[in-house]
């Protein structure tokens, strides 16, 4: 029911997540923010089982901040992604595995932008674009068709809008709004919330 998407450009990463917090058939909240700020240039998008998502994401968030306090410098996006994956893997075969699907997006001074896809079995893959949720079945092919490594920011937002329009048209459940953020060398920027209107 939940949806996450990330698109990496030459010098930025664009990410979006839906805003619904649901419990069985009821939407309990329509303005839930599923993005967690790990550091000035790293965002963690987290969906999955109720309770696990916030708990795991906040645990990773606080540990990344602790690392910065202890050592004086921040973890790079690659290191943060691998740290997250390691934690997921450790808990996977414990009595309390975390059932969460993640996208980690970040910008590194030396390596540039990075988008990492992680699933609840703690698989990790660096990808130019990625999506989670039932919506991914509809939108990954759109990303395959129209993605280019040299997208500008505006083109990336247009591609994102195309994906969301497709969800609005074909997905059986209604996702009324999406939070959008962009990460580049200047940090994390909040973009306008996307609200798909009407069915075509």
């Amino acid at each position: 029911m939940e949806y996450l998407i990330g698109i990496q450009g030459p010098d930025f990463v664009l990410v979006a997540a839906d805003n619904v917090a649901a419990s069985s058939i009821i939407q309990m909240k329509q303005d839930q923010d599923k993005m967690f700020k790990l550091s000035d240039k790293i965002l963690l998008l987290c969906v999955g089982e109720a309770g696990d998502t916030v708990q795991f994401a906040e645990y990773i968030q606080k540990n990344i901040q602790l690392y910065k306090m202890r050592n004086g410098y921040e973890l790079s996006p690659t290191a943060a992604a691998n740290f997250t994956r390691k934690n997921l893997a450790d808990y996977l075969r414990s009595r309390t595995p975390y059932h969460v699907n993640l996208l980690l997006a970040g910008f590194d001074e030396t390596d540039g932008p990075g988008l990492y896809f992680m699933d609840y079995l703690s698989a990790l893959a660096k990808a130019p674009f990625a999506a989670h949720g039932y919506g991914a079945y509809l939108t990954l092919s759109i990303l395959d068709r129209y993605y280019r490594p040299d997208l500008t920011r505006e083109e990336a937002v247009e591609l994102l809008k195309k994906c969301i329009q497709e969800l609005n048209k074909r997905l059986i459940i209604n996702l009324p709004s999406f939070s959008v953020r962009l990460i580049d060398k200047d940090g994390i920027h909040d973009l306008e919330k996307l609200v798909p209107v009407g069915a075509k």
Partner: protein
Amino acid sequence: MALFDVSGYKSHLELRKNTLGTGLRHFSSGATNQEFAVPAGIDPSGFLKSCSREGQGGVSIDLNHGTTTLAFKFRHGVIVAVDSRASAGSYIASKEANKVIEINPYLLGTMSGSAADCQYWERLLAKECRLYKLRNKKRISVSAASKLLSNMMLGYRGMGLSMGSMIIGWDNKGPGLYYVDDNGTRLSGCMFSTGCGSSYAYGVIDSGYREDMTPEEAYELGRRGITHATHRDAYSGGVVNLYHMQEDGWIKVCKEDVSELIHQYKKGMF
């Protein structure tokens, strides 16, 4: 290496020893390590999985949240309305159960799900809130109180707790309303309803809600929400207990029988 320390790598054997615990110690919060009372040698989550519909053995323990509770924020504070039916399967154990716990004069908690779990954990929350006030010389915020309750639930993940609760209060950030449940969900919002009658209550309060209602209109909306939900839901009923959370604390507004209210509302339809 810094990352090695932070990643907290533990060998599998060490992990198992830590999670099963070494003897019965009760839940305690605060500065010391949290320890949870788990029966030694038993795996609660594994046992419970075998009792659910999907498990083998044909036994099915389905925990129903047989209740309707609702709360919503508006201009003049927060309204809390609950029903009072306690059901044990299809038997009505009590028609005047108290589903609102008065934690302190500026914090309320509602209960739905297992009565035992709600009463115990919310009373424990009341104790923690009091300790916080004694230690820090200021009232606990609604956000912190709900986080405490949520963490208590997360400590017993998968072990069969059943609790859907709302924490309502007024602190220096203004009126606060949080939904906390047994799988660790904690949501802040302007309107929530819990229990198996919640969908019916949402229908009524969503369509009649305005942010600028007068207190009397808000009381009426809360009463309506519970009454119409109890009319349709078999597991909700009894009386409506209505509270109003204001800046200087909560007041109990009324306690009215739903069977009388439904006749008033549906005059001419029966």
